[in-house]
């Protein structure tokens, strides 16, 4: 085996490329990119654009999972932040004003940050199990969103808000720039400072980290703040996409897709070592899969089954255990320089 084959992103990348290839063969139009008015269009561009909310949520989830935690409240936080943004815009005298929209976005993301801090407080300070701690907000959040919108689905007409999800910049979807900025921000934060390695230390062995003087509390709290804030931004993108605040549909099940993306990217749910690039690929795999389902015209009743089937396939491909069994069955060689003495496969005990 060559070195790059043993790289831990090898299999996720292979899965993604395979998925794109299958699509391209089934419908060559999939890989086509057309230029209209200097703006790029095509299925691949759509995938990049539509993946923005999941990308943000999954990046936050990666950091939380690295600390041995989990954040189930991301979907609810999206709903809250969308509701806050739309309510502010709706209530203003000039919904089309860029300033109004900026204020609305900043306020809604700050609210999401506070919600993240609340989760972090429950987990890091009160030491409540993450799954329970974030379940509180998962259940309560949508109710709060409904309260904010008075029980209605608030809709607005506001070109600057619409631009967030549907606009183009330099020919590319604006949402893509948000994704890239988020990826860059997380990568810089985790890998250019010591935050990444300290987060991994806390995730792998919390007690040892504490004894070594690592500020585990701060690191755990910070992870939930990041997750909440990013979910807030995702919520803004989501409501910009439909130009409405829908407390029930916003970010529905996104926590599960985000967890799936993290796992597909090779980060273990038991915490510790994490891969940002892996999560990015995981998100793209999921988004490509969803686009495939749409394109193949799989009926909406069947699509979850189809989705599950492909996910199982991808997970199996990435499982080291399956790898071993397959190698044994095909009689593949091991990659160490040992002389192949009878290893006893043929032996009866």
């Amino acid at each position: 085996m060559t070195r790059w084959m043993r790289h831990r992103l090898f299999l996720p990348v292979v899965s993604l490329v395979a998925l794109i290839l299958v699509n391209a063969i089934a419908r060559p139009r999939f890989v086509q990119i057309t230029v209209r008015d200097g703006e790029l269009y095509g299925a691949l561009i759509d995938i990049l654009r539509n993946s923005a909310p999941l990308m943000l949520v999954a990046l936050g989830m990666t950091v939380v999972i690295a600390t041995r935690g989990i954040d189930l409240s991301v979907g609810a936080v999206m709903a809250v932040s969308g509701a806050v943004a739309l309510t502010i815009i709706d209530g203003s005298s000039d919904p089309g004003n860029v300033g109004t929209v900026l204020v609305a976005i900043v306020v809604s993301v700050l609210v999401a940050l506070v919600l993240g801090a609340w989760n972090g407080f429950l987990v890091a300070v009160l030491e409540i199990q993450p799954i329970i701690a974030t379940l509180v907000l998962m259940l309560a959040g949508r109710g709060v969103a409904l309260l904010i919108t008075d029980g209605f689905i608030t809709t607005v007409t506001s070109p600057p808000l619409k631009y967030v999800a549907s606009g183009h910049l330099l020919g590319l979807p604006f949402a893509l720039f948000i994704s890239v900025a988020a990826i860059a921000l997380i990568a810089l934060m985790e890998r250019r400072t010591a935050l990444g390695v300290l987060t991994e230390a806390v995730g792998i062995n919390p007690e040892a980290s504490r004894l070594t003087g690592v500020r585990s509390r701060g690191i755990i709290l910070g992870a939930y703040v990041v997750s909440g804030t990013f979910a807030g931004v995702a919520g803004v993108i989501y409501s910009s996409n439909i130009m409405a605040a829908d407390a029930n549909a916003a970010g529905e099940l996104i926590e599960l897709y985000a967890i799936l993306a993290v796992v597909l990217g090779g980060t273990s749910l038991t915490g510790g070592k994490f891969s940002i690039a892996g999560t990015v690929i995981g998100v793209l795999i999921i988004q490509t899969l969803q686009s495939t389902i749409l394109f193949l015209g799989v009926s909406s009743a069947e699509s979850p089954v189809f989705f599950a089937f492909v996910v199982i396939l991808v997970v199996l491909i990435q499982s080291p255990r399956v790898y071993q069994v397959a190698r044994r069955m095909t009689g593949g060689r091991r990659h160490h320089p040992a002389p192949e003495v009878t290893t006893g496969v043929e032996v009866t005990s």
Partner: protein
Amino acid sequence: MEDPLVQLTGATVYFGADAALDGVDFRLFPGEVHSLIGENGAGKSTLIKALTGALPLSAGRIELDGRQVRFSSPREAQLAGIRAVYQEIDLLPNLSVAENIALGSESHRWGVIDWARMRDRAREVLRDLGLDIDPASLLGQHSVAVQQLIAIARAISTDVRVLVLDEPTSSLDQGECAELFRVIRDLRERGVAVVFISHFLDQVYEVCDRVTVLRDGKLVGEYLTRELLRIDLVQAMLGRSVEDLRTRSRLRVAEEGAEPFLCARSVSVGTGIREADVDLVEGEVLGVAGLLGSGRTELARAITGIDRLDAGIIRIQGGTDAIDGPRSAISLGVVYSSENRRTEGIIGDLSVAENITLAVQAERGIVRRIAPARQRELALSWMEALDIRPRDPDRPAGTLSGGNQQKVLLARLLALAPRLIVLDEPTRGIDVGAKVEVQNLVSELADNGLSVMFISAELEEVLRVGTRVAIVQGGRIVDTVSCDELTPAELTALVAQPGEPT
């Protein structure tokens, strides 16, 4: 002579491209106690893991009763009557002692687990080992030593033909070792073959009939214990002359009556340690001796801010800064090395370099990251200084042998340039050569003005490195004596608690 019960031929185990075990032959007769000896990383644990199905053999064969076998998991080995207590205790802290002992061999009655019988059985095996604890108590609340005994109890609670003990005595004190040896001899009488791995040569000579020596994953030889001189055994192990292992004597003795660096008064934490007074002068090595559960570790944890004090004060250099948690202790130059290497020390999935620099990084904070190149450089210099092998800073620390992991922890703390280092069983699981190195290191550090608190169940060692020794009994420091005035036997007598059950 009768046929061997177990025979390994050409056993080879690869991790990546390195052979941890290279063509080793090993045989085990029924009714013998057989020791595996070798330096840290020699491949002892690897050999027994391969034997018990915890690791697959890359090459070689295993025969049981003359028939070739292949175990793909420890469970299969257990069914064949081979049980192992691995070096790193693999019990479940959230379950009760009885459940841990019964795990995998639960007694059933009408398809339902028979709890009452399970508890009785557990109590019985524990008592057999001289341990009187409640089988219904949670495992996690017991000390490492008790957990070690529980792991052994689990292994002998079923019918075994081969019992493998990988460093079972590393945290036991003399009394417990004696109980364990009694049980081992008992098993030998009943025809059980016992593999006994230990870095304590005394113990090897005490209970073992035969030794197999490994070095760098290769077989050096198999000997009868009574025919092998200790000096030759050490030579076979190290591959170099014993002359190199000279203990260093202290150059400087801490001044009497100097202003203490650390001054603790009436320190109490729960019932673990009560009203303890400790004074530590710069450059002094204070040994701490006590039986299992006497409060040695509790004292160490209280002084280093790991556990919150219920009462008492700790003053550093006469200052008024309170120690409040490990971080503030570290900032005052007080560091702690836990006896519990796996759960409170090593961060297994991080690299050796990251492990060594972790404490320094934590102190510098998140923003001032140590660049990877600098990190490796720093790590390599410590790996050099403490002779951590293999000299590869990028390898996950969890894949090092036990002794080398211990050195990684020492390096992590020393990299902080501490003023007081509290070492809880720092030589546990370390080979004879490295043990002397650590002891020498401690006295060298003390000569350079570092204060050391040195806790060890090995009393000779405490006397060798210590200037004074604090004797702990039942959560109290009952006396502090100068080490020059004591022989190990006298210290043993002082440590034993009169009147109370131990």
